[in-house]
């Protein structure tokens, strides 16, 4: 029986992009459905009643929610092709730790940058730069966070690259100035088809945020 996969997603979501990259890395075919978050589909509300958020991956009718959980699921089901998590338990723990760090620190700070101004904005900028510098430290001189090959943590973090232009423009600063190695790493990741085809264009992301700012008066 052929696998039936449906991905409920939003084009500019850095979380949805993670799932798209994972599916592309594994060469898996799926049906993509763009959600309108102002008017969520019945299917989204039924498959993710707890959070009512995208992404949701529906595999043969069974829903999986939360982007990093979905990516690990994909890695475990399609385990014979392009492994995403390293095989060593300690390396896996480090990848999971830093992916969790990205979710908590990078996302929160980034969000505050486009939603606030003045002192709050400056504080958020500092928070983001601090988090990015820590990540740059973790990357070190490796080509990828995963070592010689692209892996789970690279996938978890690269999607935020499509939002850097938005953070930089709203916050009036340059990420490359603070974290040049990260930008080099990001460009290296963008050479992978799975990444370049899955990430939203930074201008599209910025226009989306401008629309939200207008709508909600940020």
């Amino acid at each position, binding site marked *: 029986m052929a696998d039936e996969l449906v991905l409920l997603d939003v084009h500019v979501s850095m979380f949805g992009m993670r799932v798209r990259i994972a599916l592309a890395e594994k060469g898996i075919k799926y049906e993509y459905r763009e959600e309108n978050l102002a008017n969520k589909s019945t299917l989204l509300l039924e498959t993710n009643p707890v959070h009512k958020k995208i992404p949701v991956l529906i595999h043969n009718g069974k829903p*999986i929610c939360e982007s990093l959980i979905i990516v690990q*699921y994909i890695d475990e*089901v399609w385990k014979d092709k392009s492994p995403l998590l390293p095989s060593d338990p300690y390396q896996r723990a480090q990848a999971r730790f830093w992916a969790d760090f990205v979710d908590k620190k990078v996302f929160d700070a980034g969000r505050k940058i486009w939603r606030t101004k003045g002192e709050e904005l400056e504080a958020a900028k500092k928070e983001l730069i601090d988090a990015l510098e820590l990540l740059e430290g973790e990357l070190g001189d490796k080509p990828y966070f995963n070592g010689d090959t692209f892996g789970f943590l690279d996938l978890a973090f690269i999607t935020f690259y499509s939002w850097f232009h938005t953070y930089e423009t709203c916050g009036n600063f340059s990420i490359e100035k603070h974290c040049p190695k990260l930008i080099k790493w990001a460009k290296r990741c963008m050479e992978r088809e799975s990444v370049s085809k899955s990430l939203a264009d930074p201008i599209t992301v910025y226009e989306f945020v401008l629309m939200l700012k207008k709508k909600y008066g940020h």
Partner: protein
Amino acid sequence: MAEVKVFGAWGSPFSKRVEMGLKLKGVEYEYIEEDLKNKSTLLLKYNPVHKKIPVLVHNGKPISESLVILEYIDEAWEGPNILPKDPYERAKARFWAKFIDEKCVPPMWKACWSIGEEREKAKEEASEALKFLENEINGQKFFGGDTIGLVDIAANFIGYWFPITEEIVGLELMTQDKYPNLSKWAYEYCNCSFVKENLPPNDKLVEIFKGIIQAQPASN
């Protein structure tokens, strides 16, 4: 010779999660109690990012964040499974463990230690979150099925710490009427021998919480 250390705090549910995981696998470890008001140089060296307990150090290599540590324990040692084997069941277990940490624990804890409108708001948020867990446990003995798993370990705050705390502060949130399944689970959980051996003493926790109340300016 494998060397396992746990940096923890006796009253912390997050710390106890790690100890439970190790005990489940039958792993011997050295426990180091941290004074959270005066963190050791070693702790700050092992967890420079968050500077928090618990930290597991295995052969000199540190791992932080209790749920990350539990997955590591499951993968590094043989023994009873902490996570299920099936990928879909694993995804579900990870989902609910994350849900507990992000949506249940913060408002539940806040509801205990705040007053007035803030308390009401936290109570409402916690009530909604607990409803999802109530549906999920749905008559099963444990979230993990017949045996304790990741979600049960993650829910230790809900099963043990919270009932003690809410009684002391006079908050009626997780009542048997509103949450019959969850209340039954909490009973099974706290009374199963494995968990019982791995909980901090009730009277010591009560003493700490009563101390917090006395130190608060306004009464509840």
